[in-house]
């Protein structure tokens, strides 16, 4: 065959670029249908209160109002992921400010808003808990009194306000501390942050006369939404069609049902299509942001810098419902162990209920919080031992064939190369080049999420190819990457591939755009489908020529062999004339990663599949008087396995770093007494271009034995290390160690002035 890849691995422009650049691409928030109504959700004003009554009678009589629904009008079901603790509307009581209490649909948004204002809700306030400490205190009010009766996956360890405690136990941690020369204990905190997607959550729903509902939504997981809607609407999934027109960013915030169920319920009641788009305030008070955390780390080290034991605990404030909490608390234990050889471990992750919005998943869920603690502490220990932080890491990092924290055998471990190259690129030898300037390093590891993917691949009449996938293009160009794999394996050009995606009735199943898996899993499904289509093409040509199909190959848009060649366009014509055209099916499921089951408890995610490794380095200055941080350069060395399309991997790295720097320096949803103080983009501070440095990407390639052409998941990892890298660089620059996120100028300045411990 050919001498090396022609399409995959090349810097080709993404397939969806023209539509997105020219503004013609349709996103869910653009979507409209004739006769469409506007839906709005009434949200609780109380953080924790008995719901005495919801009186919507007046709202129903207002002009333009076509439907008003409350808990009394919807099936009484509890839904959710690992733990089913959620209801469509608050029933017996409300559990956070922002919890849905009722919804209306009206002919205009203004009429819908007027109707919301006309619904009377009577509350009787209850004692509330607003942070993990309060929720865990003896005698704390229970957020869910009936928690033992809820349906949950059996492995969860639950107790009162704790909706899961995941654990890793390896070796003997107490013995490990005895073997250590020094034992270090530190505490950290991180703030709640929002994914900051450009497009708010949006859905349009319409019912047909057969009782089937179609929902256009910007969800990352159309098949999951189909199932959730089936639960909520008490209908079989075959009655529910979910289509993703386009997504203006998700980053994990659009995994779970957002407004789709309200749109569907209102549309059924009104008998007309209903559209709901969330407001900025709803996004910042009632979406699925990243959990705030508390972390405690205790690490034992020998004098020469070998880690002997680590005990770590991380508490996630998951809000009023479990949401992603039980899973995130599990994943966190692997991040908290870190990509280090540590013989003795006791790591726990807790998901804790509070009276705040339900947190969810955000690009590398748990990664930045846990990594901030781990990698800050690595530098603190190195400083205390008088070791260079790079050397200290190199002494302890995992290498090829090592065991991960739960006993998985690690292969394709590119961590040392990442660390050395990031350090070299930032000029590590000169770590404090001038006064108040410093450089910081942080490294980590992450998973390529599993789950299955199916694709259909169809030969078009002109010899081009349609790729039909259940995955949504979330903006990463993952489907362009998958299409590059397909083009490569079919001997066609990328421009010959067109993509149809994310329609639960028309496309095959896909586990969804989550967990850095789309290009990886859909790419592999494309490999399988391409092999199938090549077989079909060769069989068709072989039948024409009366030769054995095995002697033929597909190359340069032709089937060739036996001294002959026939173009795909000709084969397309033949197949349509005789056999209904050619269509191939390809599927993929990541093989399970073996681990030691004895080491884990209540763990939803015990091993990292095709793990990626990465190191970040930053060069910054601190204004000693104001505490302001100025970022000069940022370097990422990431082991991507194989770079399917370097341009878009760099895009993922730049975007992930920007988001991570936001969490590091400026972003935080601030609660006071159960209310968000900054529910707007005036005071929720995402970085601007002027706040960000140039991000330099170094793509390291230690091929995964499982990924397409060796690729590993790339989308989430760049978001993990920025907070730790920045904290370490600030410490290097001015000697102040900030152990809470965000590292605001205020914290740095007050610490420098000796006024406060950050």
């Amino acid at each position, binding site marked *: 065959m050919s001498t090396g890849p022609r399409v995959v691995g090349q810097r080709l422009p993404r397939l969806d670029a023209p539509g997105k650049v020219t503004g013609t691409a349709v996103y869910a928030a653009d979507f409209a249908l004739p006769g469409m109504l506007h839906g709005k959700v009434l949200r609780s004003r109380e953080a924790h209160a008995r719901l005495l009554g919801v009186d919507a009678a007046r709202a129903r009589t207002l002009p333009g109002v076509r439907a008003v629904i409350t808990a009394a009008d919807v099936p009484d079901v509890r839904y959710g992921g690992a733990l089913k603790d959620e209801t469509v509307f608050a029933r017996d009581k409300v559990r956070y400010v922002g919890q849905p209490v009722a919804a209306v649909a009206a002919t205009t948004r*203004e009429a819908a808003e007027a109707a919301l204002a006309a619904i009377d809700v009577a509350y009787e306030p209850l004692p509330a808990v607003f942070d993990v400490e309060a929720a865990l205190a003896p005698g704390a009010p229970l957020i869910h009194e009936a928690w033992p009766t809820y349906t949950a996956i059996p492995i969860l360890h639950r107790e009162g306000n704790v909706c899961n405690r995941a654990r890793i136990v390896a070796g003997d941690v107490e013995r490990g501390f005895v073997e250590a020369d020094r034992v270090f204990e530190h505490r950290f905190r991180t703030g709640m942050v929002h994914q900051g997607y450009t497009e708010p959550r949006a859905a349009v729903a319409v019912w047909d006369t057969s009782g089937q509902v179609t929902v256009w939504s910007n969800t990352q997981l159309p098949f999951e939404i189909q199932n959730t809607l089936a639960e909520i609407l008490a209908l079989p999934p075959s009655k529910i069609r979910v289509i993703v027109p386009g997504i203006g960013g998700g980053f994990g915030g659009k995994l779970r049902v957002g407004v789709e169920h309200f749109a569907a319920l209102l549309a059924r009641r009104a008998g007309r299509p209903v559209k709901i788009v969330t407001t900025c305030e709803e996004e910042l008070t009632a979406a699925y942001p990243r959990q705030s955390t508390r972390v405690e780390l205790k690490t034992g080290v020998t004098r020469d810098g070998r880690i002997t034991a680590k005990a770590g605990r991380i508490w996630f404030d998951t809000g009023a419902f479990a949401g992603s909490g039980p899973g995130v608390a599990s994943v966190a234990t692997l991040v908290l162990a870190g990509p280090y050889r540590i013989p003795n471990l006791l790591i726990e992750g807790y998901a804790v209920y509070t009276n705040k919005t339900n947190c969810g998943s955000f690009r590398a869920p748990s990664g930045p919080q846990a990594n901030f603690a781990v990698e800050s502490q690595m530098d603190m220990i190195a400083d205390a031992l008088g070791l260079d932080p790079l050397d200290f890491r190199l002494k302890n990092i995992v290498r090829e064939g090592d065991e991960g924290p739960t006993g998985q055998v690690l292969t394709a471990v590119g961590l040392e190369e990442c660390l050395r190259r990031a350090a070299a690129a930032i000029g590590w030898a000169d770590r404090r080049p001038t006064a108040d300037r410093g450089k910081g390093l942080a490294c980590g590891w992450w998973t390529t999420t599993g789950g299955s993917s199916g694709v259909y691949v169809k030969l078009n009449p002109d010899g081009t190819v349609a790729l039909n996938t259940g995955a949504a293009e979330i903006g990463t160009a993952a489907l362009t990457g998958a299409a590059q794999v397909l083009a490569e394996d079919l001997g066609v050009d990328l421009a010959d591939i067109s993509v149809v995606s994310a329609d639960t009735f028309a496309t095959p199943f896909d586990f969804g755009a989550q967990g850095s898996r789309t290009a990886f899993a859909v790419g592999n499904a494309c490999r399988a489908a391409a092999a199938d289509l090549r077989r079909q093409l060769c069989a068709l040509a072989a039948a024409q020529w009366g030769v054995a199909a095995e002697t033929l190959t597909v190359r340069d848009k032709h089937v060739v062999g036996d001294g002959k060649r026939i173009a795909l366009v000709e084969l397309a014509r033949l197949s349509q004339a005789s056999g209904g055209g050619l269509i191939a099916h390809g599927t993929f499921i990541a093989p399970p990663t073996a681990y030691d089951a004895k080491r884990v408890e209540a763990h939803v995610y015990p091993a990292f599949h095709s793990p990626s490794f990465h190191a970040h380095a930053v060069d910054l200055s601190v204004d000693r008087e*104001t505490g302001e941080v100025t970022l000069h350069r940022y370097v990422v060395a990431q082991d991507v396995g194989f770079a399917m399309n370097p341009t878009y991997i760099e895009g993922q790295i730049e975007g992930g770093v920007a988001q991570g720097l936001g969490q590091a320096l400026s972003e935080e949803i601030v609660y006071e007494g159960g209310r968000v103080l900054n529910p707007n983009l005036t*005071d929720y*501070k995402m*970085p*601007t*271009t002027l706040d960000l440095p140039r991000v330099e990407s170094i793509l390291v390639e230690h091929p995964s034995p499982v990924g397409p052409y060796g690729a590993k998941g790339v989308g989430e990892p760049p978001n993990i290390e920025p907070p730790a890298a920045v904290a370490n660089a600030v410490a290097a620059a001015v000697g102040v160690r900030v152990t809470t996120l965000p590292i605001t100028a*205020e914290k740095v300045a007050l610490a420098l002035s000796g*006024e406060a411990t950050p």
Partner: protein
Amino acid sequence: MSFECHEPSSVTDAVALGARFGEEGRFLAGGTDLIIQMRRGKVGPRHVMSLHRVSGLDRIEADGAVRLGALVTHRTIERCPAFQGPLQALVESAAVVGGHQIRNVATVGGNIVNASPAADVVPVLLALDATVTCLGPDGERTLTLDGFLTGPGQTARRPGELLTSVRFDQLPPGSATAFVKAGRRKAMEISVVCVAVRLTLDAAHARCQEARIALGAVAPTTLRARAAERALEGQPLTDEVLRRAGRLAAGECGPIDDVRASARYRRLLVETLVPRALRRSLERIGRAA
């Protein structure tokens, strides 16, 4: 949100409409404060009077005293050649209002009448001893800017009065201005603290003849730090004198704790940024000499 929109085409018409609607009406210049406040339900005017057809209020006159029409945009200030010298603080402040799109439409008049204690251009105008001119059915009134600003979102403007211009004198030789701002971001940022200063040195450049220090976001209104000013006037401006002015200014402001920053940090910023702005002014005078 429901209101009637009016588009007067002259100052006279605007004033007449203003008089007619009084408290029920609001003028709309760039709309970058007003629209947001309406959307958040903070104000609910029955009548919105857009000033975009009113001509003659968007000019800068700088021969002799300087007059800025109320509709002069921040972009226009940023680019005004007359402000490149001693009046540079005007450029420095206008250049950090929001982003490009905001500066293209947002006006100096809006910045003043909105009366946010965190407004960026207002402290510079205060440091220039500016006066403002309002026009109402009873005629024209000129007030000091200091007297005009009475509280957060509150001014001495009478209901329906149109702000037409803001005026200040050219600076004597040996003068310079500077503006510095602190916030969580480097752009699109509401000041956590901002500081504007003006210095005039004596003929020998040995001592400070006149000083103005105005502070933003540390009191219910943009604030003159008078004690700090007094501590400079008549003194040779050594670094110790500048730092003392910073400490005095930090003492005389009255910041609050809010989601943007603590009062403690705001005071610390005042203490730091006042000498920093003064140093910058001194350098500018030195360079011009």
